[in-house]
């Protein structure tokens, strides 16, 4: 009797577990993290009951939780990061975050109706790589997320679209603008761009 009860309880709990988290079974933590974020963003984008501005706000909140913008800024600036003072670093990170968000959300908006396939997940120490594919009617676009574990959370620190790393792609631009107008000149140009994109 107790054995039977135990079995029933066990199978019940298994069923409940599989209902409440259908993907937990064979998925790594970083993969879950990426899927959760993308699904959340895509559902938000498709939700017609909220305004475009509200959508952006919800998405930006989610991205701020899932992306490591300080790490991204360091990588995008490379050696120039070390030369910047704390205030410049702070300003840069904020502006960079806004520019990245604009680009990322803009592209997701263009591909809202497409399917996302989650292909592979690799983990090595504190780093993980998640390979996904946007499947459109006429093309497949490979997107790779690179994550790093910080304080127990998996955070995205780079996105590679068609083998193009978002972060390294900014390096030349920032490098050349710093050379031309100095660090504060770069910050001013970035501020103008952010204002232009969010009137």
């Amino acid at each position, binding site marked *: 009797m107790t054995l039977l009860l135990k079995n029933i309880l066990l199978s019940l709990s298994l069923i409940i577990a599989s209902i409440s988290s259908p993907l937990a079974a064979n998925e790594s933590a970083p993969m879950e993290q990426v899927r959760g974020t993308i699904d959340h963003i895509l559902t938000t984008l498709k939700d017609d009951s909220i305004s475009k501005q509200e959508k952006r706000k919800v998405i930006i909140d989610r991205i701020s939780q899932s992306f490591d913008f300080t790490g991204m800024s360091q990588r995008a600036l490379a050696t120039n990061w070390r030369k910047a003072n704390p205030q410049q670093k702070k300003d840069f990170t904020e502006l960079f975050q806004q520019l990245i968000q604009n680009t990322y959300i803009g592209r997701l908006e*263009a591909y809202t109706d497409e399917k996302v396939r989650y292909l592979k997940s690799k983990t090595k120490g504190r780093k993980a790589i998640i390979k996904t594919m946007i499947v459109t*009617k006429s093309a497949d676009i490979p997107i790779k997320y690179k994550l790093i574990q910080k304080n127990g959370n998996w955070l995205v620190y780079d996105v590679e679209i068609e083998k193009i790393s978002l972060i*390294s792609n900014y390096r030349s631009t920032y490098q050349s603008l710093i050379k031309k107008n100095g660090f504060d000149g770069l910050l001013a140009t970035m501020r103008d761009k952010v204002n232009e994109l969010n009137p």
Partner: protein
Amino acid sequence: MKKIYHILLPLFMLFPALSLAANMEQSILDDEFDDEEIIEIADPLEPINRAFFGFNDILYSYALKPVAKAVRYIPEPARIALKNFVSNLTTPIRFINSLLQGKFSDAGTEGGRFAINSIIGILGLFDPAREMDIYKKDEDSGQTLGYYGVGQGFYLVIPFIGPSSLRDSIGLVANYYMDPLSLLSPERDYYIAQTGIIINEVSLDKDTYESIKKEQLDPYLFIRDAYAQHRQGKVEE
């Protein structure tokens, strides 16, 4: 135009032989997790490249894009069918370059895709192979050169064509000879066909160029680095 191809082709044939030795070093691929490497491309012709970039921008914005937008009135399935048809027709480029790189299973995949899509996909208008999870192997002559250790050289913006590199522009010439469309005669018809293909592609694209132009602080640099990274990634694949 054709003359240039004749001059450049022997050059292309020479490259693989010259650079076989370099191949050895290149074969050890970098650890995927090691992301400190920076891919950049030399750009000694930047002022000229920027001028051609500006020329192409005007061409795109005032000629290509308006036509492509008008073409969007043609139902999308028809435009995708055209894209599939062209892609199927240009199989030899991918097939030959897979072979040249010793990627025999990729060559087999391309051959299989060609057979499936030509027969079941009605002369390549549809891509049933993709539904069977048999995906296109994107190989071209620029990548073959890269495979044999030829570096990208320097960045080039070619009028009417767009971003390229010294290596890839030589690759383009070789691609031309592998492209069945090059059999079109007179040569004018080849260029008309290419123009049509590009307009169709732009009509299917989701305004990628516009978003780059709007969002980036320096679109020229952004596209240059994107091109270099994309091509490097393709070679390492």
